[in-house]
């Protein structure tokens, strides 16, 4: 059967990784391909790179890292951040990424999901959703890095995104992000029960138990985390042993 995927997420600015500076055993800690290779060797099943380069002029240069990563690692990886057109998809996929993730631009222009899915196949199109609990007991979609609230309901947006052709949904919980108190199980469970594409949990990992919980209680297909990996609090090889011993099927 399919294994659950463990996915470290790396932020890249101007072609350099901006988190994960604690790896003293890697000579060039800021290089996306070296850190990518480190995680790949550690047993990561997939990688996500978010390009957070501020200026659109610098983006083209920044995206050169995608080719370096593709040349260096031999596991699948996804690139996101600032993707707003079909041309952005073409650029990133041509440089060797396997998937492209879209967030704010999909909210602004939902037909981008459909166009990309028809052109490149649903498996390439990842819809990333930033969600935050609202007063009505549901979750609102936020854009622009979680700064701007939209009228969209996160669960309905996930359903709509899949209808339009998204092949995978990443659910980032704004409330849990950085809190290290576990993933938003309630939200994740509601989304996994409504869509038939893989759902990836993001935001809230603090312990190895949180990863197990997301799989067993919310039935997610993959679990994404950043800081617990970057700062060495959880080693991927240890995490995989733990999950394997606790009833979660992972790749050995």
């Amino acid at each position: 059967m399919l294994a659950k995927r463990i996915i470290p997420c790396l932020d890249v600015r101007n072609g350099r990784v901006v988190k994960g500076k604690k790896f003293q055993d890697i000579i060039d800690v800021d290089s996306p391909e070296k850190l990518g290779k480190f995680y790949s060797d550690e047993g990561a099943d997939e990688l996500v790179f978010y390009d957070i380069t501020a200026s659109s002029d610098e983006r083209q240069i920044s995206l050169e890292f995608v080719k370096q990563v593709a040349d260096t690692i031999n596991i699948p990886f996804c690139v996101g951040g600032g993707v707003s057109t079909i041309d952005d998809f073409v650029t990133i996929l041509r440089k060797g990424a396997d998937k492209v993730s879209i967030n704010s631009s999909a909210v602004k222009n939902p037909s981008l999901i459909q166009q990309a899915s028809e052109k490149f196949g649903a498996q390439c199109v990842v819809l990333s959703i930033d969600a935050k609990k609202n007063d009505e007991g549901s979750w609102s979609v936020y854009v622009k890095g979680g700064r701007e609230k939209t009228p969209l309901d996160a669960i309905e947006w996930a359903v709509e995104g899949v209808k339009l052709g998204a092949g995978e949904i990443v659910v980032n919980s704004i409330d849990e992000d950085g809190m290290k108190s576990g993933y938003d199980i309630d939200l994740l469970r509601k989304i996994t029960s409504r869509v038939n594409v893989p759902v990836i949990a993001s935001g809230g990992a603090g312990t190895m138990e949180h990863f197990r919980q997301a799989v067993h209680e919310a039935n997610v297909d993959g679990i994404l985390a950043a800081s617990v990996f970057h700062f060495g609090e959880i080693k991927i090889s240890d995490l995989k042993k733990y999950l394997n011993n606790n009833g979660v099927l992972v790749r050995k």
Partner: protein
Amino acid sequence: MHVIIDYGLGNLNSVQKGFERVGIETKISDQLKDIRDSHSLILPGVGAYRDAIKLLKDKGMDQALIEQVNKGKPIIGICLGMQLLFEVSYEYGMHQGLGLIKGEIMKMEIPLKVPHMGWNSLTFNQPNDPILKYINEGDYVYYVHSYFARCEGNNIIAFSDYHIQVPGIVRKDNIYGMQFHPEKSGQVGHNLLKAYKELII
């Protein structure tokens, strides 16, 4: 010269890198002459079956491939490239394939998520096949596909369980096919290509 067949779909760089890492230098080409002069052939694949087979036919590459493979030249098909090796596909209509291996490409009609995407483990069906030399039963490989090959058991070297038995590695004489992406399957994929190298060099 080992030739990666370029029929105008997808990014072939990852496939080329995968072979390069095990020491197989390749040339990406759509020239009939290169197909004829090659030592072995690599048929990659991303995209739709209909488009792929049409592009191969438009350039006469289908006949060139069949001719060379019938002479005993090694070929390996990857993902859609593996599916093209079979007789027919039912992906959006009915399309004739290269017909190098008996069997048909069917939609995965199963109660699980499709595409079958992610890491799945291999069960050996022909454990003595030399392609398996450097890997173990239960090792994981990376799949992304919605259609699978329905073919004869003696052509299935290894399969993965996803409600149905999905042929992962198929073989007929000098013809190999991998439904998963060895170039994206980490060390296991590397070890498969390493074994393949020993078969062709």
